[in-house]
């Protein structure tokens, strides 16, 4: 990725303001119009009194949107100033907020579900898209809620509405992840190379740098080279991006925070990661550029080769858990860090490492970033791409990084369970508050995201630490090292699982629990060492940065 930066000075601020204002205006109008239209049609078709209610609500929402927008624009300076001061806390808060929000959303959805299947209602009526839950029925089921809430709840009985909300969440997440990861990667790269990384845009450590870059890329001219296969050139970028989005569909963030829970979620996600390559290859081919073709060829080699050890390594926990369903696999890892798959037995531990290496290769990350090696192939398959299409490739890549890390977390590192065994906090009870607390502390999307972020960090770290290896070394590492190793692990793990069952059923589980605890201990030691180094680095950050003069820089 080339280093670029747009100085976001006050000269450009008004125009950006206008853009934001227009977009918000448009969305508010759209929302209002939609609700009004829905109300009208509803009224027209069955004369429900709700229609009149919505007819009032629609314009009200529109007005509120406009007002809010105006306030936002007028208060921009104020917001900017507070952002500058509290950006770090906002960032942390955003992660927590997303988790809490998602959790609250799931609770809300569950409630809706309970409402629909309320014994007072006939569940057969809701098997159809139309939905026939009346406002009066909602009011009957929940008499204490205000009418407004009843109206809002009414919408959610439609699966399509719920799906739309979920799609919104998925898209939002996919946008948040790459944006902040790119910024983060640049900061890490800077620190590793004894510089500071982006420091200016957004004042506090350049936190808005990626946003600025994104805006720049959107406005950049879209070039298609002469002699390129234009349809393929265009479709390639989407083929690289869309499958990753689809992979998120089956990816559970928590026990109930999954868009579509599938029996074959693992296979589905793997297949989506496989499809992503088609886009890259087509991009390389359609560019009519020999460097791009080289990149595409390398990508094809690498992906076809590394899918096998990756798949084999993913089969290990599947065997250990006895299910392909990701939620079930995570459920089998309940009970503290030592019950995570990676610490179950030595084969799984090694399998985790194998999977992580193979996943680096399948994301084209360093040291396996042969397809886009800047120094030899001039960025490889996306040499000819610019602007928004280029952006799509990168969104795809970073989202894919998140997906493979998430798979590693789900299959090997206990998914959304924290390292705390749930029995330690079992005294909380069963209420909503208790569930919320345990969702945040013991098992919840927050933990899932934290673990993913850690693995992502390791990916970034590796990229800026290891040199790129040659293509023959890449293939050697796969075919001669990883493949036999994972096959051995597969056999060993199968035998282990078999023996472990036999031992456990005979009441003797000494060896397995001993190994389990010692592997878990290794994990704890590793993490403790990691955090110790991090804390050490934080305390000595000025010395580590070295001779750089950081004080004069803004927000340093």
């Amino acid at each position, binding site marked *: 990725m080339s280093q670029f930066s747009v100085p976001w000075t006050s000269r450009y601020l008004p125009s950006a303001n206008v853009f934001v204002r227009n977009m918000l205006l448009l969305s508010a109008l759209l929302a209002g119009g939609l609700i009004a239209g829905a109300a009208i049609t509803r009224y027209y078709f069955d004369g429900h009194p709700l229609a009149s209610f919505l007819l009032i609500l629609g314009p009200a929402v529109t007005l509120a949107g406009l007002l809010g927008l105006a306030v936002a624009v007028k208060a921009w300076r104020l917001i900017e100033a507070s952002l500058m001061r509290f950006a770090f806390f906002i960032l942390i808060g955003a992660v927590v907020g997303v988790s809490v929000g998602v959790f609250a959303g799931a609770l809300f959805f569950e409630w809706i579900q309970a409402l629909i299947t309320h014994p007072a209602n006939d569940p057969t009526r809701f098997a159809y898209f139309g939905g026939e839950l009346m406002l009066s029925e909602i009011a009957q089921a929940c008499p204490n809620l205000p009418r407004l809430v009843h109206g809002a709840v009414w919408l959610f009985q439609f699966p399509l509405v719920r799906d739309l909300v979920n799609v919104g969440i998925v898209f939002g997440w996919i946008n948040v992840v790459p944006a902040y990861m790119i910024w983060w990667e640049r900061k890490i790269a800077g620190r590793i190379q004894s510089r500071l990384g982006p420091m200016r845009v957004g004042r506090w450590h350049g936190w808005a740098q990626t946003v600025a870059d994104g805006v720049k890329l959107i406005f950049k001219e879209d070039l298609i080279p002469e002699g390129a296969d234009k349809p393929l050139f265009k479709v390639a970028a989407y083929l690289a991006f869309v499958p990753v989005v689809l992979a998120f569909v089956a990816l559970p963030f928590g026990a109930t925070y999954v868009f579509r829970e599938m029996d*074959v979620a693992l296979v589905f996600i793997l297949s989506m990661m496989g499809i992503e390559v088609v886009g890259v*290859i087509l991009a390389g081919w359609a560019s009519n550029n020999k460097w791009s073709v080289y990149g595409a060829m390398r990508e094809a080699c690498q992906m076809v080769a590394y899918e096998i050890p990756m798949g084999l390594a993913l089969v290990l926990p599947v065997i250990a858990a006895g299910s392909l369903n990701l939620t079930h696999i995570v459920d089998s890892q309940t009970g503290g860090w030592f019950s995570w798959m990676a610490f179950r037995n030595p084969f799984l531990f090694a399998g985790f490492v194998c999977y992580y290496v193979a996943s680096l290769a399948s994301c084209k990350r360093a040291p396996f970033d042969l397809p886009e090696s800047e120094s030899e192939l001039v960025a490889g398959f996306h040499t000819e791409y610019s602007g928004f299409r280029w952006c799509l490739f990168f969104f795809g890549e970073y989202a894919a990084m998140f997906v493979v890390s998430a798979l590693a977390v789900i299959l090997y590192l206990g998914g959304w369970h924290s390292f705390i065994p749930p029995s330690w906090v079992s005294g909380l009870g069963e209420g909503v508050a208790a569930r919320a607390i345990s969702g945040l502390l013991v098992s919840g999307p927050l933990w899932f995201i934290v673990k993913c972020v850690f693995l992502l960090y390791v990916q970034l770290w590796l990229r800026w630490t290891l040199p790129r290896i040659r293509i023959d070394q890449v293939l050697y590492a796969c075919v001669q090292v990883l493949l036999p190793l994972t096959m051995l692990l597969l056999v060993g793990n199968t035998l282990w699982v078999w023996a472990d069952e036999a031992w456990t059923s005979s009441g003797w589980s000494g060896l397995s629990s001993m190994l389990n605890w010692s592997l878990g201990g290794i994990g704890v030691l590793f993490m403790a060492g990691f955090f110790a180094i991090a804390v050490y680095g934080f305390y000595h950050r000025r010395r580590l940065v070295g001779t750089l003069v950081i004080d004069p820089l803004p927000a340093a």
Partner: protein
Amino acid sequence: MLDSGCRVLKGRVILRLLLIASLGFVALPALAQAQAAPRVEPGVVYATPGGWFEAAMFYVFGGLAIASALGVCVSRSVVRMATWLFFALGAVSILYFLLAATFLAAIQLIVYVGGVLILLIFGVMLTSQSAWVRFTPTRTNLAVASLICVGLLICLMSVLAGTDFGPPSATSIGTPVEAIGRRLLTHYLVPFEIAGVLLMIVMVGAAHLARQEKN
């Protein structure tokens, strides 16, 4: 310059965003199961046959499959053929979702799209001297082929039309992966093993065929 570029491009940007959104949304294969609760018990598929949603999905993706197959027929560049094939295979895999064969759909995506197709493109790249080499068939060839294929299609349609398949049995809904696995390792064990042996032989054979001649 910048401003005019902005204005021209803004519309296209929004269009593209919408396109991506619609691609992502429409292609969500699991939406075939959208008529039920989001929390699905494993092993049970809530596809309700006969719904309008199933019909819509079928027509969209069946149409896409047919269109892509025709695209394969009419394309001249092999890479474009492969791309069309990709769309055809993807559409067929969504048909598998509609047919409640979830596992098969995922496998189709992995093996066909992730493996075979890439292999094909690989082959194209390794075996063409120039990117744009095309071998055009003769007109006679095309005419005879079209005649026979259309004839075949008509015949097949007639056979379909003339056959009474009887009432469908409602037993086979859902794809418990476990059930497939069990059946594969019990009743179909011998074919399974033979397939495994075949794959190994193929691996060796392919490596042998594609090896570099040593001088």
